[in-house]
Every structure is written in C-alpha cells, then in structure tokens.
C-alpha cells in the first residue's frame, strides 16, 4: 500500500511550476513550428474528436455515471450529441472562418485596401468544470483548435472519472505535440496559472474566476470567464401552464439535477398564480420522476459531500422552515436530495443569496408581475433569465430591462444549443462568450491589415506645415469631396 502512495506522491509532486513551465515552452516551440496553422491539421483534429465520441460513447456514459450518476440519456443528449454537433458545424464552417474579411476604406486613406485576418493567439489554457465535465472541457477545445492554437486542458478534479478518461482519450486521438491534458487540483492549477498563456478560458464560479483573472493580469493575458449566477424564471398567468411547467422542470432537474450554470435558480410569480404553479409542478414532477424521486434513475445525484452539505444548509436555514411545499427528502449515503420546492421564502434567506446549483427551487411571490424586474435587477447579473408569458409588451420590457448573459422567452436552457447565439455572461456571470463562430473568435486575434501603394502621396501630411496644408487636411479628414475642392482652390 505504501508503494502506491509513494507513486501517487511522485505523480503529484511532478507537476509543479517547473513542469508547467517546461510544458508551455514545449507547446510554444510546436506552435512556432507552424503545425497548428494549416486547415488540414485543424480539420484532422476536429474529425478525430468526432471519432473519439463515436468509438467511446459507452465509456463516456460510464464515466459520467460514476462522477454524477448522470442518466445515460442526459449524457448522450446534452454532452455527447451537443458536442458532436458543435464539432461538425465547426468542420463545415472552418474554411469560411479562416478566410480573411475584406473591409471598406474611406477617402481618408485613399487609395488603399484593407482586410481583417484571423490568426491564432498561440498557446492557450482551458480550465473546465465538473457538472458537464465532458462538454465543458471539449467545447472550448473546438474553438481553440479551430482557431489554430496549441492548448492545455485542465479538467475538473471533482469529476475524476471523466478527467482521467479525457486524459486517456485525448492522448490517443489528438496530436500530443499540440494538445495536452493536465489533471489535478489546486496545486496543479496554480502551477499552470503562474505561466504566461496567450488566452485563458475558465468555466466555474466567481471566486475562482477572480483568481484566474488576477493571475492572467500578471501577464496581460486576455480571459474568457464562463461563470454562473441566480438565473430567475418569471412566470406570468396567461400561459399554457402544463407546457411551461414541464419546460421549467426540464431546465431545472432535467439538467444534472439543477447543477447547471443555466438551470432555473428561482421562480418569481404573482401571489395569485403561485398555488396553481405549485400544483402543476407537483403533478408533472410525479409524472417524470415517480412517487419516490429520491430513487429515480432519471436524476443525477449531488456531485460530492461538500455540495451536499452546502445544499442541506439552505434547507436548514430557519428563515425557510415551514416553506417547503414539496420534496425536501435527503439521503446522505447516496448523495441524493429529492426535487424540492419552497414557497414564499423571504428575500434575505440564505438560499436567495447565492447560486443554488442543486435541486431546490424557491418561489418568490409578488403582487404585480412587473415587480419581478426589480427583484432581478437588485441582484447581480445572472448567466440566464427566463420568462413565460404570452404578453408581448411584457416580453419587450423583459428583453430591454433585464441584463443577463442570455434570455429565453417561453422555455429554459435551450439557447445553449443555438450555436449562432453567443453564450456567455455579463457582470458577475462572466466575461466573453463562445459557441459556434464565437468560439473561433474567442481564441483568435483579429489582425487589421491595410495595403497602401506608392501612388497618391498627399504632401499635406508632411512638414513644413503651412496654412494651405491645414485647410486641405481639414477637408481631407473631414471627408467631403466638395470641401477638398474648395480647399484646393483656397476657397475655404
């Protein structure tokens, strides 16, 4: 037993700042050699990722089941299928993304032509999260590779089975001279963060997000931070309640049992409508998960005892005792908490102060639905906000007045799947965006290029400066042809 511990210690010891530095230098040398630049290389890597999914689907399902008890259907639908689709879309668009964009020039720089060229940033770091450990590790990797970078992926140690599967599979399928996986926890991440990267892409929480950005600041490294927040659901009364309820359930408990960055966090509805909503939720929840949801195989478990403790504290808060109208059952040995609804909780309760990230759904009631906007705006900007209504005016006001990463009207979470929409936060919910072309752009530098010729040199630019030159320059920069003519003839 001691020998395996020694081996483990050695393994842990070996990845320190020195090892990290060596790794980055190796990747920089490979990047400088130009390997990652060609379309062929990038396409081959994306194709390899698709093959990886096809050949190892069961292993991926098993790893996610081990880490989260994630139902196989959720893994297939939300992790594997979504990822494969992103890969295929990237492959299809890659040539177009790589083509430079011609832009117009004005009379101020006449004669000239101009374009914007996308080039890779260099060597990038992707730090992933535990809740969708497969998708959230590899989706940014698509962008990094499509944009032609070398990269290091640091999967979350809180999902260890997926982390080691990723290390193994990426090692087998991708070009190791350009793409590497570093497993580990705080020490390894700190060692990585000390290095100089050309971009850091982090998915996780605000506390660590600040640490990542502070580390990046030392090297002036740009970052994308995909964080979270309390994504509210505003529920109006004149809606198809059954459909709305099922969509709320799908977005809440159907997404890793509430442990998703875009899961509905809490509901706001009117005092009058709340009882109807609660009844509908109870009815549909039973249809989905049966009479004993604690045992349902269609729900993920809580990821670990840390988070289990965090969630039970919310329920133990004396401000919410007596407010549980459904669920509230727990099984610590299996790390399970049943779908739980709390009604009419005070705004200053513990559960309303931080992102829940679990299967507890508080309902806040207001007199008039318009008050919900104030409730939302009094908190920090969330990653997503949802509204169920058929009232067009309310929809307009919602879109205009609620600041969040993304908004969905009459559904939840789905905007993730639309790769023409940028996916990212604002304020506390994050910086930057990705998905689709936004991923490519996130990992690219858009270089401005101006082509001038040796013809057409305007003496007005150069000293000695005279009044005539001043007049001409005003006309030229001001951009009017008439003005230029007048200046030339001394008429201005």
């Amino acid at each position, binding site marked *: 037993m001691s020998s395996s511990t020694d081996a483990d210690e050695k393994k842990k010891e070996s990845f320190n700042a020195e090892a990290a530095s060596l790794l980055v230098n190796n990747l920089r040398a490979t990047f400088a050699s130009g390997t990652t630049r060609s379309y062929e290389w990038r396409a081959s890597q994306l194709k390899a990722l698709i093959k990886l999914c096809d050949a190892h689907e069961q292993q991926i399902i098993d790893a996610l089941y081990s880490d989260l008890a994630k139902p196989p259907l959720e893994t297939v639908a939300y992790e594997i299928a979504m990822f494969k689709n992103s890969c295929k879309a990237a492959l299809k668009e890659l040539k177009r993304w790589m083509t430079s964009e011609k832009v117009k020039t004005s009379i101020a720089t006449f004669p000239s032509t101009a374009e914007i060229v996308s080039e890779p940033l260099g060597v990038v770091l992707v730090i992933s999260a535990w809740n969708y450990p497969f998708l959230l590790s590899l989706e940014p990797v698509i962008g990094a590779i499509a944009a032609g970078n070398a990269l290091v992926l640091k999967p979350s140690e809180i999902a260890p089975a997926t982390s080691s599967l990723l290390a193994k599979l990426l090692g087998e399928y991708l070009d190791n001279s350009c793409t590497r996986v570093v497993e580990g926890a705080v020490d390894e991440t700190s060692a990585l963060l000390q290095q100089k990267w050309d971009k850091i892409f982090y998915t996780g929480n605000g506390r660590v997000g600040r640490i990542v950005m502070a580390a990046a600041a030392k090297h002036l490294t740009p970052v994308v931070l995909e964080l979270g927040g309390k994504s509210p659901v505003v529920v109006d009364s004149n809606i198809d309640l059954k459909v709305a309820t099922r969509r709320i359930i799908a977005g809440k408990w159907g997404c890793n049992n509430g442990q998703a960055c875009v899961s509905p966090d809490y509901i706001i509805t009117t005092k009058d409508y709340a009882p109807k909503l609660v009844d509908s939720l109870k009815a549909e929840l039973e249809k989905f998960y049966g009479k004993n949801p604690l045992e349902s195989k269609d729900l993920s478990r809580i990821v670990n005892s840390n988070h289990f403790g965090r969630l039970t504290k919310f329920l133990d808060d004396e401000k919410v005792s007596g407010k549980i109208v459904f669920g509230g059952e727990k099984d610590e040995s299996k790390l399970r908490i049943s779908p739980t609804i709390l009604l009419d909780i005070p705004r200053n309760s513990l559960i309303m102060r931080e992102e829940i990230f679990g299967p507890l759904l508080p309902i806040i009631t207001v007199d008039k639905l318009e008050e919900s906007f104030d409730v939302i705006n009094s908190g920090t900007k969330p990653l997503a906000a949802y509204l169920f209504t058929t009232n067009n005016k309310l929809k307009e006001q919602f879109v205009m007045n609620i600041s969040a990463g993304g908004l969905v009207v009459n559904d939840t979470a789905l905007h993730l799947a639309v790769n023409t929409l940028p996916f990212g936060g604002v304020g506390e919910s994050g910086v930057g965006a990705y998905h689709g072309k936004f991923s490519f752009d996130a990992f690219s530098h858009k270089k*401005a290029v101006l082509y001038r010729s040796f013809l057409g040199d305007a003496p007005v630019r150069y000293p000695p400066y005279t009044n005539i030159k001043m007049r001409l320059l005003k006309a030229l920069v001001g951009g009017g042809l008439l003005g230029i003519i007048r200046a030339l003839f001394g008429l201005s």
Partner: protein
Amino acid sequence: MEINGEFLEESVRELRQYFRSGSTRSVTWRKNQLTALLDLVHKNEDAISESLYQDLGKHPVEAFRDEIGAIGKSATYSLSCSDIPLLFFPAKGEVLAEPLVLALDPLIGAIAAGNVVVIKPSEQAPACSSFLANTIPRYLDSNAIRVIEGGAAVSQQLLLQKWDKIFFTGSPRVARFVMSAAAKNLTPVTLELGGKCPAILDSLTNPSDFKLAVKRIVGGKWGPCSGQACIGIDYVLVEEKVSSHLVELLKKIVRRFYGDNPLESKVISRIVNKQNFTRLCNLLKDPLVAASIVHGGSVEEKHLFIEPTILLDPPLDADVMTEEIFGPLLPIITVNKIGESIEFINSRPKPLAIYAFTKDETLKRRILTETSSGSVTFNDTMVQFLCDTLPFGGVGQSGFGRYHGKYSFDTFSHEKAVMHRSLCLEIEPRYPPWSKFKLEFLRLAYKLNYFGLLLHILGLKRYK
C-alpha cells in the same frame, strides 16, 4: 475639491442612478451627446491646439491631423451609423501622448453604446487634462459623463470602485495594476498598450518608391509627437547593402521637414516631461549606443527638446533595443536578407503595429502569416488609425480588446443572446421518464435525420 474615496464612491453612485433612470438608453440622448461632442471640438479648436502646444509643443497642423480631425471624423462616423443598443457599462480611460484623441475616441464608443462614463485623463498632459475637465461639462450631460483629474493616487482610488468596464490606454506596467484591480470585481477590460513597432524596409528597385518609403518613415517616426505615439515607428529593419543610402536619405528628409535647426523649427513636438526626457537621454548614455549615432543626438534640457536622432546598429541588448523607445531616437537594424526581419520581430514581444515597405508579394504573405501584431500596414505608416472599418488594438504585450468605428460601440456593449420560443409544438422526448425510445429519438434529432425520425416515430426503425 479633494478627490478622495468618498467623493468617488458618491460620484459612481450618482452615475449608476442616472444610468438606471434609463436616460442614456435613448437613441436621441446618444445622438445629442455625440453632436455636442462634435460641437465641443469644432468650437474649441484653438483652445485645444493651445493646450497641446503647452503640454507637448505640438504644432497645430499635427494637432489637427492626429487629434482634432481624428475625433471629428470618429464622432461623425458614429452619428451616421444608427445602431440599436444592447447593453451597457460605465467605463474609464487613462491617456498618454495623444491626450485628446485617446480620451475622446473611446468616449464616443461609450456614449454610442449608452453608458455613463468617467474619464481620467493623463496627468502628464496637464493643460489637456484641464481643458477636458473644464469643457466637457459645458457641452455634455454631466449626469452621465464626468472628468476626474489627478495622478496615480486618484487612479488608484478610481480602481477601487466597481465598474462595468475599464478602458485603459497606456503602458504594460500600469496595465497590470489596472487588470489586477479589475479582477477583484470581474470587470472586463480593454487594454491599449504599445510595443516596439518595427518598420521593415525592403530594397525597392524604383528609386522614387524608395524615396517615398523613407519620406513616410520620417513622417511615421517624428511626425506623431516626436516619436511619442503607441503606433509610431520604433525602429527600422533594412538590408545591410542599402543601409547607408537609407541613412543619407533620412538625413536629407529630416532636414527638409524640420530645417537645419529642429529646435527652432517649431514643427516637432517636445518631450512630454522631465521624467521621459531623462529616460531618453539615458538611453543615449550607453557608450555603445552613443557610438552608433549617425545623425542628431543633441538635447536641450530647458525646452525638453531632443533632436531627431538616428542610430545605426546599436547593440541589441541595450535598453534602446529592449524597451519601447517612445521618443525621437530611430535605430536602424541591418540584416543580410530582408526575410530575416521576420525572425527578428518574432523573437520580441508582439507589437501594436508592423509596417512593411515592399512590393514583393511573397514577403508580404510571409509577414502576414508568420508574424503577429495588432495590425500590419503595407507601404505606409500610421494611417490605419484613420480607417474606421479596421479594429484598432493589440495582441500579447501590446494589449487586448479593440476599438474605432463599430468596434468602439461593441467594446462598450454586452451582446445579449435572446431566444423566443412558442408554447405550442411540444416535443415529448425532451422529458423524463427516460426510455430507449426517447434516447433514440434524441440521437436522431441531433443528427437532423428527419427521415429516420419519421420512421422512428412510426415504429418502423430498429434501434439498440
């Protein structure tokens, strides 16, 4: 008035309240502000020129070309593009050697995007800073746009506040402080920094082309604020065999532009302050560097004046070749073959701009694909600044983020994703309880295999 933490907190609170009132959201308000800004610039041209002359000894034509005209053009361009707003932030900027345009250009973007703004102009250009502090409140809505003057202490206080965006123009050293402070609140930043912008001069066979190239190099070195510009040429790379011809031409053109006594010519800016003057003089004190001077080198401390100075092959490890010069010293670095310039540039931090004078299409291609910089301009210098359709910003040590034209608007906006769904048309397989049927359905749906889906629904497809 004392600018302390309390005053700033109160100011920020007032600005946020005004923002929440929604006044800055309307297209009318934004257009009014931009028009007022144009008015400010047009009606105060003389005062602006005077301030720039006081701070930097800048000639009015240079002031117009690089600052007044540029701002006027940017504001006019923004006014002509009516965009629908998305989401908004307060912003802040710090400025150095193009004190006016670098304070006001980002301001245009911030206003166009509907934000409330605090501007912190550079204390190193005090006349311009005062001008902005006194004039902006007279033209713009001071509920939304404030100017706060001061030095490092005030900047530090400002950085303690929570902003929705910080826009910084300046040096990498200060940028690190700004970004670290921003990290505490997860505030996104745009950093417009500098670098050693090289000019690659290929051997051009047509002598008049070569002459024109050198003329543009002179214009791009000493024209902007006597070399104190982030996109000014820092050094030149040229093949050994044409280096002496280059030096001769440079001397000739410098004499033509600035006269035999540049100090008296009044067409060249002076050094911004004592600190930078001393820094530049120290660069020349290194004996090996001093030995490489082929033109100029004289300094006049009273007027903070340094004459246009040309160095031929100074030692590569001297400060003059390892830090951004930001002054009127022009090193010429000779190489055997011009293609070696690429490796030279790549072994140094990524600059804000690369200039290349060449007609060789292969070399152009190589420069584009093998080097990395904020921008590349072929056969000219500086003018990319005027092109509003090109993003202006750096990469690596020269910064990140970009502005100008619509990019300014985007820099100060949040692009919010909005998805509308209808409540009809339900797809059952989205919901638990899960089954093999639903799994297969979703598989086929993701593959967009509509025919397969149809068969599946009709029960005609076999699945595992």
